[in-house]
């Protein structure tokens, strides 16, 4: 993760990441000038903590995802640790990397006071920065007041500060639009990574097209698989499958450990089955459906297929011997 080693050149850096924080939690229509600070804690913290934040699911390293979210411009990256922390929370990396942002976090009032102090320093500095960043995109819309005035607004946390690039209109509408567009582009980048085959396509409409196709295909797959399950369903008893299937889900990830675990479970099942060998035959007779196998059979067969044929044969031998 990027270390906040660079001196915080740009004033008011702490506030500007707020406009990247998902406004979904606040659900407000207007983007740029809405008070996003309130939404930040709820949206970011909530998204990070409960299992299944999407960027954590992506498994992307923190820095890579943050690069996607905060386009380019490493040198002008406002290295406020508070900013870094908020960015990390927005990308919902709270669960895999809770430790890395937190030690960097200075007390918020302290940093905002420092930022406010620096804001008053250099209007000339700001002008020069505006010129130098003409070609490069400034990361995270670093804090710059719209018309170069209005120091009084700086301390209000409700406003989002966007840098006015040279040669671009500086009134509030265009800045709001630009902030919004940057947000949208950031998320489109993430979506491009999610959806396979989207990296070559450029342009919002085509990427959206691909995304729609992908979501439709996923939904159709779910329907198809549920139909298969429905077809299989009437003949199988689900009683004993719980433990087995949970181990099976971890099986692709666990490798050798999974095999051992599976063997242990299998032995446990076998001992449980052999404890009452006479019950299965009565169940078979009571069952109206002649094709329904008893759960002991199904569990043994499930274990059998996983440990290749060598597993299946000794079990059938055992069963025959017992009966």
């Amino acid at each position, binding site marked *: 993760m990027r270390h906040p080693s660079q001196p915080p050149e740009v004033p008011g850096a702490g506030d500007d990441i707020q406009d990247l924080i*998902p406004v*979904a939690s606040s659900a407000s229509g207007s983007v740029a000038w809405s008070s996003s600070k309130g939404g930040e804690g709820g949206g970011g913290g909530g998204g990070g903590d409960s299992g*299944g934040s999407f960027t954590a699911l992506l498994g992307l390293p923190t820095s890579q995802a943050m690069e996607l979210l905060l386009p380019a411009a490493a040198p002008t990256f406002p290295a406020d640790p508070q900013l870094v922390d908020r960015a990390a929370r927005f990308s919902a990396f709270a669960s895999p990397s809770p430790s890395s942002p937190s030690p960097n976090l200075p007390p918020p009032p302290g940093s905002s006071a420092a930022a406010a102090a620096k804001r008053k320093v250099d209007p000339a500095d700001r002008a020069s920065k505006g010129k130098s960043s003409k070609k490069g995109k400034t990361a995270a819309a670093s804090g710059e007041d719209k018309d170069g005035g209005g120091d009084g607004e700086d301390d209000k946390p409700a406003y989002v500060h966007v840098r006015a690039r040279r040669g671009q209109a500086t009134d509030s509408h265009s800045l709001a639009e630009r902030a919004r567009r940057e947000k949208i582009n950031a998320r489109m980048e*993430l979506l491009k990574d999610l959806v396979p085959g989207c990296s070559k396509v450029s342009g919002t409409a085509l990427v959206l097209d691909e995304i729609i196709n992908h979501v439709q295909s996923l939904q159709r797959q779910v329907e198809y698989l549920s139909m298969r399950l429905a077809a299989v*369903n009437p003949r199988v008893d689900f009683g004993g499958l719980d433990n087995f299937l949970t181990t099976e*889900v971890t099986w692709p990830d666990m490798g050798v450990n999974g095999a051992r675990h599976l063997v242990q479970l299998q032995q446990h099942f076998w001992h449980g089955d052999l404890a009452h060998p006479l019950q299965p035959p009565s169940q078979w007779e009571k069952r109206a459906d002649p094709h329904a196998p008893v759960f002991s059979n199904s569990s043994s*067969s499930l274990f059998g297929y996983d440990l290749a044929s060598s597993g299946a044969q000794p079990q059938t031998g055992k069963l025959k011997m017992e009966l």
Partner: protein
Amino acid sequence: MRGPCNNTMAFKRGFLGSLLVSLQSSKATMSLEERKRAIKSSADVAMATARGVAGARWPQAILSSSSSSPSKMQAKVKRCKNIVRRCCHKRRRDGNGTSFFARTALNRSTEVARRLVKKRTKVLRRMIPGGELLDEISLLHEAMDYVVHLHAEVDVLRLVSKALQRSNASSERFASTAQLKEGTVQVSGESENPC
């Protein structure tokens, strides 16, 4: 590509648990269509509950749409949804009508591009549960979240159906041996207890 992540596994396990519960409670008397619909809806609900209502909107949308309610409540709920939808449409139309870029768009190409994008966001809104009420940015956020969880759901469903198919196949093999065993049990029973 993507390394195994703890959150994915937790979600998959939760999803699998809920799915199995709902599968066990399915009755044997339903037709294929009903069963498929029941499985699909239970999978959706399972996905929504496994995800938790915390970081996204779509789980809540799924749960609210699938929760059973008496007919009066359902009518009211539908009316509320229509009202909200109409409000959102109006708000969006008004906002877009007076947008800065609508006034200054000189290129035909940008207008065309914007129209295409709007069409597609409409389609995306329909596909993602709960997407009708969201603005573009949160819509994209929701879409990302939803896609990831759909991936996980498809994986789990595939595993389950594979396992069941194999169990069926091998249990059919065992069925023939089971009949043999049945025969041997009866024979041994008769031999043990001569009548």
